[in-house]
């Protein structure tokens, strides 16, 4: 019975949400909306669990001076500091307002650090591209040639190099053709397959075929 109840609830909720896609009448649409609002509440309350987990795991490591314990103190100190600033020194519910200490700390401490992480992407793209374009197989050769055509065809020098040729073999034309036909066809093929995968997974969960996320007592 304890195993059946979550399966039945999942099926009811799942079918109701699917029906609300086809039935705009409030008899179906409004309960579906209420369920989605509940989901937001559940997710929001989950952050209490998340914060507790961060304190537990990192607090133990910091107190017992396990490996890299100093970083754990930095994490716990920063997290506690932001919470104290947000709760007690930033005007209550207006903590995200302009000029509040919480907003200041977010904008001038967190955002620059986030931008730093994001900017690493430029270097990683360069290193990944270097490996990707090494021609070792036929596939890699095709990839390198296609990439070269697209890259050169998208910049003015590509136009300059081939503007005297017939339009169909100019680099910008070939680059656009590669992007609009073979690339789009592949992307849409993947998207259709992924869409079916979403439906199949959803159906398995709704019908209770896939229920590994519900603990099955031995």
């Amino acid at each position, binding site marked *: 019975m304890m195993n059946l109840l979550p399966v039945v609830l999942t099926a009811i909720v799942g079918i109701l949400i699917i029906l609300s896609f086809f039935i705009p009448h409030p008899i179906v649409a409004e309960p579906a909306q209420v369920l989605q609002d509940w989901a937001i509440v559940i997710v929001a309350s989950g952050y209490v669990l998340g914060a507790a987990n961060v304190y537990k795991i990192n607090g133990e490591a910091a107190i017992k001076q396990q490996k890299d314990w100093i970083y754990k103190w930095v994490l716990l100190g920063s997290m506690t500091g932001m919470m104290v600033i947000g709760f007690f020194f930033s005007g209550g519910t207006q903590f995200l307002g302009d000029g509040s200490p919480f907003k200041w700390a977010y904008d001038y401490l967190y955002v620059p650090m986030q931008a730093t*992480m994001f900017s690493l992407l430029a270097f990683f793209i360069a290193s990944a591209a270097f490996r*990707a374009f090494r021609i070792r197989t036929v596939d890699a050769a095709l990839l390198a040639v296609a990439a070269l055509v697209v890259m050169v065809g998208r910049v003015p020098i590509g136009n300059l190099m081939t503007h005297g040729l017939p339009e169909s073999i100019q680099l910008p034309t070939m680059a656009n053709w590669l992007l609009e036909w073979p690339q789009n066809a592949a992307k849409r093929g993947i998207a259709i397959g*992924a869409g*079916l995968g979403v439906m199949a997974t959803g159906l398995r969960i709704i019908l209770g075929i896939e229920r590994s996320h519900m603990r099955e007592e*031995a």
Partner: protein
Amino acid sequence: MPACVTQSRRHPSFLDFVPSLLLALVLVLGLAPPPAAAAQDSLATTARTLEAAPPVAAPAPAADVVGVDGKNDSGKAIELSWSASPDEKAGIATFTAYLVERAASTAGPWTRVDSLPRGTHKKSDTVERGQTYVYRVTALGPGGAAAPAVSAPVKAVAQWFNTGRVSILLAMLLFFVLVIVFTMRAQAGEKLFVRRIPGIDAIEEAIGRATEMGRSVLYVPGINDIDDIQTMASLNILESVSKITARYETPIIVPCNYPVVMTLAQEMVKNGYVAAGRADGYDPDSVRYVTTEQFAYVAAIAGIMLRDKPAANIYLGSFYAESLLLAETGFSTGAIQIAGTAQVAQLPFFVVACDYTLIGEELYAAGAYMSREPRLLGSLKGSDYMKVAIILVIVVGCVLETAGVTSFKQFFASQ
């Protein structure tokens, strides 16, 4: 110094006073009437000019206002249409805009809905369900307002079915039937062929390598919450992965981006350890919440990779800009890397930086593939047959469109 400041500080010169002095001289000599008399003359002149000019006429009115209950909605919209004012059609300057108003009855009071510089349609989507309204459309211009055109009473009613989604419903029903039929056939003992997926086969090999090296396995379930089906698919795979790590007695680290994902991941890992008969080996701290912030999450995982040096990194789920940051950092540590996502834009990054990549639907198939449970494999077979049906529809659609038959495509255009 700004120009405006420079100008404000300019000293007045003699020339500035010349007009005033001339005016004073004229008044003193009696050559001009006093200012009050001059103003009276000006008003009289203006009045004569207005009387002489032809008056600007009000625009010709709009006509035939029709209100229709909005289609395929929950009874919150009324769609209006009307015949344009002839002056708007002719582009005459007497027309400026249409004023659209509504009331419970023709007696009013009228509430402004919108004003439109042109056009003959308006969707009013803020009405009360079941309430009767009348609408009026008034053509406005510099010469005033035309006589309003009033609609018949109209009521917004909730619909029971969205007719714009018939094609989706049919496709979904066909898909569900296929999945259920193949699931039943698999349950009945029929052996279903499922092609090899090298990326999934490599998971056990990667965990085995981590075991030989005495290092951990890092499992990243994506950066979306549980409402993303990719995260759900990833968690289903996590159970099978943790079953293997439990069997090999290799530690697994699962950093999570959302608390709800964390609680489910804990259940999955625990299930895996229980299924492997090693419930005592389960470490609750192996699944941990990190942060919901995207790049802070990346920084935390990069830190784990660089400090703990896991020998196998598995990224399965939904990823965005962090895909390459994670995969390249993992590559630099020399770990075997297996990734999978249905985010098409991120697949190239994973293909480049990882040893194996599950592309799109393979992510959703992985759970069934690894568990080998007949019921789950049946749903994979159903998906394959649905793909055949979609290919047929695409081919038929291309042929009909080429032949100039557009109704087939329109049937599949959903709202």
